């Protein structure tokens, strides 16, 4: 955690009853083969509090219709609720205007929207796009597709042995060909928090726009897009205690207005004839077709829930869990933590000598422990550390020390099986 969170840690967490908060999540009461579930795969997808589940039920039972169309009662209610959800997201990231928040199907869709809408319009042959070694495949592949199409080049910021970006090298990559930077805020594979403010400011010296992939950051770090001054910011609801199938793209209004739409269809137009279509204003220009209305409203409810607890409180509590788990894991012989950045969210990637992550995951599952095993859609990170895969425990604010203890006991069982 960064220094702000650390200083808040002691006084803030004492005000929150984390045991009571855990009870908000019905799925956590499950047992797996008689063992209590320890859900430590939150970086892949988080669980949903009852309040969000109830909100989805209320929408489907009392408020559902298509939006922006009919004049009847339900359509007006649904349109208003959908708009309110957008405003909640706007406030959550402190965007200047609600029209700067576009609902997408998730982070991947948001990145593709920028690649298609900005990249295909403005990136030319021999232009350079800067990415980092820490990127998730979803922030690599779209840019490769664009580079292949345009004859542009991808430049990659390296990382050190702790999994931290080499920011000096990042700054050296800039030249007159640099036209775009797309950068992960928090590494999904390692938990590294990148110094994005410094990196955004530097890119702006070259008048280069910056997209931040915030999928792993938004659930754990307060986001202020105006203070960051990023040009685009993307994240998903399902990693933020909301439903799958929805996310947002924040973009500065002037940039969004300059971009071409990515998908054509209903809702994104002002008028259509067979000769010409005039596009709707933002954000509608980028929301073709019926959007995931229920999921967006659920997303809004999740934002309300998180805001009530306070992202700062969440960050501080998760940081105590990270410290505890890191300390416990470091004491087990044969266990190696991959990614030891100074600034980290509560994600621990690890390997166990001589044991493949898939075998680790299967045996941990026997004890009710859910971890992710594999390359985490970040193969360049795996290659950098010369491992085919890792096991990853990623924590949320509903996790507790007892679950860390269960993980540690599970790892000892794994080692015993393979002794």
């Amino acid at each position, binding site marked *: 955690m960064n220094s702000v969170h650390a200083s808040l840690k002691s006084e803030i967490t004492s005000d929150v009853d984390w045991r009571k908060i855990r009870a908000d999540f019905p799925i956590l009461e499950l047992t797996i083969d008689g063992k209590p579930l320890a859900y430590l795969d939150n970086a892949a997808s988080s669980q949903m509090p009852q309040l969000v589940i109830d909100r989805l039920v209320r929408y489907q039972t009392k408020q559902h219709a298509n939006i922006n169309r009919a004049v009847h009662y339900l359509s007006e209610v649904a349109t208003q609720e959908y708009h309110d959800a957008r405003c909640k997201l706007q406030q959550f990231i402190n965007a200047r205007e609600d029209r700067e928040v576009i609902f997408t199907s998730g982070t991947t869709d948001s990145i593709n929207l920028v690649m298609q809408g900005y990249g295909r319009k403005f990136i030319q042959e021999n232009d350079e796009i800067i990415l980092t070694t820490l990127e998730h495949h979803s922030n690599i592949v779209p840019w490769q597709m664009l580079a292949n199409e345009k004859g542009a080049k991808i430049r990659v910021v390296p990382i050190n042995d702790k999994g931290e970006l080499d920011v000096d090298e990042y700054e050296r990559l800039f030249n007159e060909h640099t036209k775009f930077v797309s950068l992960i805020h928090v590494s999904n594979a390692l938990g590294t928090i990148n110094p994005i403010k410094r990196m955004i400011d530097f890119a702006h010296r070259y008048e280069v726009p910056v997209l931040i992939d915030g999928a792993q950051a938004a659930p754990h770090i307060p986001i202020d897009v105006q203070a960051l001054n990023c040009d685009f910011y993307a994240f998903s609801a399902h990693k933020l205690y909301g439903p799958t199938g929805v996310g947002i793209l924040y973009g500065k209004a002037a940039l969004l207005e300059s971009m071409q739409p990515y998908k054509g269809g209903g809702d994104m137009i002002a008028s259509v004839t067979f000769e010409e279509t005039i596009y709707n204003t933002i954000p509608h220009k980028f929301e073709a077709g019926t959007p995931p209305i229920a999921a967006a409203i659920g997303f809004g409810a999740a934002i309300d829930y998180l805001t009530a607890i306070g992202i700062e409180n969440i960050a501080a509590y998760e940081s105590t869990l990270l410290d505890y788990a890191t300390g416990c894991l470091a004491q087990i012989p044969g266990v190696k933590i991959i990614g030891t950045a100074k600034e980290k969210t509560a994600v621990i990637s690890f390997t166990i000598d001589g044991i493949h992550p898939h075998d680790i995951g299967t045996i941990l599952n026997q004890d009710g422990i859910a971890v992710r095993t594999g*390359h985490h859609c970040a193969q360049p990170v795996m290659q950098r550390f010369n491992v085919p895969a890792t096991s990853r425990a990623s924590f949320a604010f509903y996790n507790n020390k007892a679950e860390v203890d269960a993980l540690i006991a599970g790892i000892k069982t794994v080692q015993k099986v393979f002794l």
Partner: protein
Amino acid sequence: MHTNSLYQEVILDHNRKPRNYGKLDQANHHAVGHNPLCGDRLDITLQLENEQICDIAFQGESCAICKASASMMTTAVKGKSRSDAEILIHEFRELATGKLDTGHPNHLGRLTVFSGIRDLPTRVKCAILPWHTLYAALNSISSTSTEANNDSSQAMSSHSAG
């Protein structure tokens, strides 16, 4: 799901001390198998004379289930005819995907130790990858994948996790 019944001593032993591990210099059939979901990779070389598998070897990076399956597979098919090996490939796939009729006699012998894998859909591919790769080698397909959309992957398709 009974993990203990999967990680039995015979599987752990083949993982620890894989048989026929390496690469044949004199191979006339060769294939590489990939499981793109986990990054596992398996290399199979074999010597086929008069439709008989005279020698076979494997190497690669993989989990214990995949490595033990490959090791036991090589011991099972070495010296067998192509057609006998293909019967085993078929039966092993049926076993791993839970489709094998255990009421009928089969040729799997000790390979039935992998029967527990049918309860772990995410791990079925780990066990099948070596057999999939053997099929490719016998049929001169140089590279294959558990996600491949060819005939040899039919047994996987029902368990495709994307």
